[in-house]
């Protein structure tokens, strides 16, 4: 049983054992528009909660991708680097960004559940 949680920076995170899969939400892709470039963290590197862990660019602008939890990058999704449009097509499933071996599960506690995130996303739509 795995639970999906959400950050205020519009990332989703799914924890299975001590490995978290992280991507950006559908709401984020709708705000960004067509994604045409993706940069991911290096495998084996360590990322810190709320730190930058990648970049997505639309035709309009570049946006940082943050990690909602700390950990070691154990896998990255090359498919979204080769074809960034996949992020617009299936952001909360096959177009995940990276997987982390997380250090501290309690970092998950401050994140939002789906209902709270949906409410938050609605409020931040301009």
């Amino acid at each position, binding site marked *: 049983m795995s639970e999906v949680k959400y950050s205020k920076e519009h990332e989703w995170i799914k924890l299975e054992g001590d490995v978290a899969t992280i991507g950006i939400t559908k709401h984020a892709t709708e705000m960004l*528009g067509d994604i*045409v*470039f993706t940069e991911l963290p290096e495998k084996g590197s360590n990322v810190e909660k709320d730190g930058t862990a990648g970049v997505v660019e639309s035709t309009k602008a570049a946006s940082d991708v943050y990690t909602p939890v700390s950990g070691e990058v154990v896998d990255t999704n090359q498919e979204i680097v080769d074809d960034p449009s996949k992020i617009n097509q299936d952001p909360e499933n096959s177009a995940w960004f990276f997987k982390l071996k997380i250090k501290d599960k309690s970092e998950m506690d401050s994140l939002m559940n789906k209902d709270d995130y949906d409410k938050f996303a609605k409020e931040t739509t301009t």
Partner: protein
Amino acid sequence: METKKTSLYKLHQNCNAKFVEFAGYQMPIQYAEGIVEEHKFTRNHSGIFDVSHMGQLFIYGGDELIKDLEKIFPLDLKNLKLNHSKYSFLMNKDAGIQDDLIITKINEGFLIILNAACKYNDLRILKELLSEKYEMVLDENRSLIAIQGPKSSQILNEVVIGVKDLNFMSGNWFSFEKQKIYITRSGYTGEDGFEISISNDFADKLTRELINKGSKLVGLGARDTLRLEAGLCLYGHDLDKDKTPVEANLKWAISKERISKGDFIGSDIIIKQLNNGVAKIRVGIKPEGRIIAREKTKIFNLSDVHIGEITSGTFGPSVNGPVAMGYVVNQFSKKDTKVFLEVRGKKHAASICSLPFYKKSYVKGAN
């Protein structure tokens, strides 16, 4: 100052436009389908652009006006035929570009299309230069609608019969709902197309008819990717008052006849630069891989010396890769010169390339 709305605002809303404030106007940056789809639809079919924020300046006068305008614009205006258009610039005395524009000879004088962000300043400058001798109307009662792409001629001709016979960079008066509308065969996307000057009260109706015939509204986002692929400059980014037409690699737009005589604003500098060369020049830049180098990205040579800056950069949907242009020190401007672009602290390989990135031939004569 309150943000202005164009006469197509409601139609944009109905088409789920995302709006952005641009030069004091609420303008559609994109619609539901998104920039990439809108861009491709324009290249393959036909896109409609609301460019009503741009200035439509009518200046009325005869031979004396032509003489006076030749002191301002580096154009052979006395030989410009009725209903023919030229691309030009409003320069300061140092040949710095204050705006780029399209000027068309009409029966009663000239129609000049100005950039939205510059139009009021242009009017002030021109009034001063022409000493208020001529009637000048920056007409905000008219909308400007562009229709661009290979199917546009056929689509527009179904609504306004006869437009398909216009030659590239020429125009004429036509009629729509008994209204006089002025149409030129021109545009800023690298595609065949038209720009339509029409009374605000009828712009919505005309646009809806074009949509019914199969064209689609396209936002400013795709207009930017289209013009950049076509190697065309955007004022305030690729052009500004610190850059001259020679530095901007636009010397083709300066009349040779006028250069031989000089006597227009900025001509001393232009002639000097044409004879002696320039220190920096605008070039096309193709990043390797997928990295996008945006405006203000620094350009370095192979010895890590800073040689220039990107002025426009994005992802080109038709090129299916990143595209950019910028200014580099002249000695590094040769095609295929290897350079590095600094993006987010890392250097990425790129090369100088010729423009445009995407080429399709404009219609030269009538179909």
